[in-house]
């Protein structure tokens, strides 16, 4: 789960990482209130989960209330790379002497944590890595032993931070590691970590990705989960406990297992179609889970055909077939369904389904054939729908003429 900047800063504060005084605003008036509290000059920052806010005009400096009003008014509602700004972060503007970069993440091949520190902050770290790799000081941290202060102190020396920043920066790194470790982050990144003109080191931005698997021991994450996605399809799926990701095509996908669901999206794409979503319903396929999945897919207006791809392992295909039949009785579907059921007890499962098959519920023996059928059905529905609208309009026009 990715956090917004303001949530990241609130999370940092729990672990004692210093940030600028500031607050959240959803309206122009709230922005002025927060600016007065933080003290002018202030920075008005768009809260979106996408990079490049500054270039898009989503970060502005304001010296007084009228400037805050003007900037807040223009940034709220702004579209930044498809993300509409609904919330602002307003904080006291800092006098920056130096900009650094600091982060912790998991180095998967090394199977240890990786800390990165650079005196060239404020730009994308990938850019620094490409143009000046020597400017990044890396430290591998054994997850059993953790980071100690001695290592942190040598690390800030190696990175060549300004002498006046080093002691404070080492403390920030210790706090950031604790946030990353105890706070169960996949990524904890400060870019830039600044040294102010008056000699203080603090975080000017916060990029935090939390490990969803650790949610059971972090009740404080509930508020972040509430703002996690703007996609109404994903919100609905989340409420139903489904593993769903919205995509932009017209073939709805339901599969059991993450790998098979991904593979199903790929195969649809290979035969010339576009998946509308990724949806993994897990190992089994009970009527309850299948109904929930069909409801979510059905609520997506862009879906024109549904491809249900289930491989029965422990869950036998005859049980899956029963679940599908029961779910179809509960959900009133707009789109036709192509079923591909395979695996244990496949013959029994197909026999159960046979009497229910129609031109709106078809079965295909393999993934590839089922994908072709679903893509063809989606295309036909698309043409049919457009033609239907045209016919409707023509008949209305002819009525008007009459």
């Amino acid at each position, binding site marked *: 789960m990715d956090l917004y900047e303001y949530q990241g800063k609130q999370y940092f504060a729990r672990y004692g990482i210093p940030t600028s005084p500031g607050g959240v605003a959803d309206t122009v008036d709230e922005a002025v209130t927060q600016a007065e509290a933080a003290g002018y000059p202030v920075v008005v920052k768009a809260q979106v989960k996408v990079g490049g806010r500054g270039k898009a005009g989503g970060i502005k400096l304001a010296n007084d209330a009228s400037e805050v009003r003007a900037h807040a008014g223009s940034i709220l509602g702004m579209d930044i790379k498809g993300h509409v700004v609904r919330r602002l972060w307003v904080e006291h503007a800092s006098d920056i002497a130096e900009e650094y970069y600091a982060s912790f993440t*998991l180095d*998967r*091949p090394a*199977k*240890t*944590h990786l800390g990165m520190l650079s005196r060239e902050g404020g730009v994308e770290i*990938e850019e620094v890595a490409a143009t000046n790799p020597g400017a990044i000081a890396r430290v591998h941290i*054994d*997850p*059993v032993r953790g980071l100690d202060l001695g290592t942190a102190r040598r690390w800030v020396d190696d990175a060549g931070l300004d002498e006046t920043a080093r002691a404070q920066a080492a403390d920030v790194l210790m706090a950031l590691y604790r946030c990353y*470790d105890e706070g*169960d982050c*996949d990524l904890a990144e400060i870019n830039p970590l600044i040294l102010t003109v008056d000699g203080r080191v603090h975080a000017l931005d916060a990029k935090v990705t939390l*490990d*969803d*698997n*650790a949610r*059971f*021991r972090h009740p404080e994450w509930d508020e972040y989960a509430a703002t996690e996605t703007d996609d109404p399809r994903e919100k609905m799926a989340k409420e139903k406990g489904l*593993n769903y*990701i919205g*995509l932009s095509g017209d073939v709805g996908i339901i*599969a*059991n*297992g*993450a*790998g*098979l*669901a*991904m*593979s199903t*999206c*790929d*195969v*649809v*794409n*290979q035969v010339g179609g576009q*998946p509308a979503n*990724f949806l*993994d319903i897990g*190992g089994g396929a009970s009527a309850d889970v299948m109904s929930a999945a069909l409801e979510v897919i059905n609520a997506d207006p862009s879906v024109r055909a549904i491809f249900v791809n289930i*491989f*029965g*392992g*422990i869950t036998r295909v005859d049980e899956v077939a029963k679940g599908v039949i029961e779910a179809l009785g509960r959900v009133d579907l707009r789109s036709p369904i192509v079923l591909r059921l*395979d*695996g*244990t007890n496949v013959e029994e499962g197909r026999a159960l389904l046979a009497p229910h098959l129609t031109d709106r519920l078809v079965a295909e023996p*393999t*993934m*590839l054939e089922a994908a072709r059928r679903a893509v063809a059905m989606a295309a036909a529905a698309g043409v049919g729908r457009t033609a239907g609208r045209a016919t409707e309009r023509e008949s209305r026009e002819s009525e008007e003429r009459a």
Partner: protein
Amino acid sequence: MSIFVDETTTVVVQGVSPTSQGLYHGLRNRAYGTRVVAGTNPRRGGEVIEGIPVFSTVADAVESTGATASFISVPPPFAAAAILEAAEAGISFIVCITEGIPAHDEARTYNRLVQEHPGTRLLGPNCPGIISPGKCNIGITSGDIALAGGPVGIVSRSGTLTYQALHELSQQGVGQTTCVGIGGDPVPGTNFIDCLAAFEDDPDTKAIMMIGEIGGSEEERAAEFIAANVTKPVVCYIAGVTAPPGRKMGHAGAIISGSKGTAKAKMEALSGAGAVVAENPTEAGERMVAIVKELG
């Protein structure tokens, strides 16, 4: 032959109670022919459930039964401790199918195993387990879809795609020596290279099928290993060609970060290493069947 397990492997199931997942899967494994010799439960030591003697600790179970492998399906908050308990009791092969273990717990546990219990191999977590058809099945793979007799070794990061691969081969009469599900988490105990090396050394395995997915760089590292060390034919399939960057596709490890971890990069690396790269699971099965027929 097989890798990691065989007909002599004896299994202790951790976390056994009349209603636990562990008992359910343990009984299925036993019904397949796996030598399930013990269960553990701190509150049920001394009981016998469905003919399985239950011990309070793994150490007690090992002392009494000589179990060599353990099977863990306990919920995520307890999984790391269960893995370490098994290692401390001298278990040499641990299968953990638990899904949803925090990445930091996995990283800590993996490093503790390496540092303190170098003789222990962990398979998983978040994997379907391992099956050597006709000999041993630890985990949740359905024995019905596997076929004994070899000559194919399968290693996979994805559960249902593993079943799909087994099914495609078995239906064509092509058997498997061992099928290993390494799981889709960020810090797997056993990786592709461990399995590729073992299959390369196993005289009964004549060809290897490898199923990967987006995220991380394990497939790229496997490609380097194949180029340098694997003489047997390898057929690969990578899921996630259409996956959008920055979104976790179900598995905690399946995420494209920036330009890294894409299916395309992995397919190119594997193809460059001399492996056959199939576009979909069906094609992977067909290519493997053709290779096996050619081998005779």
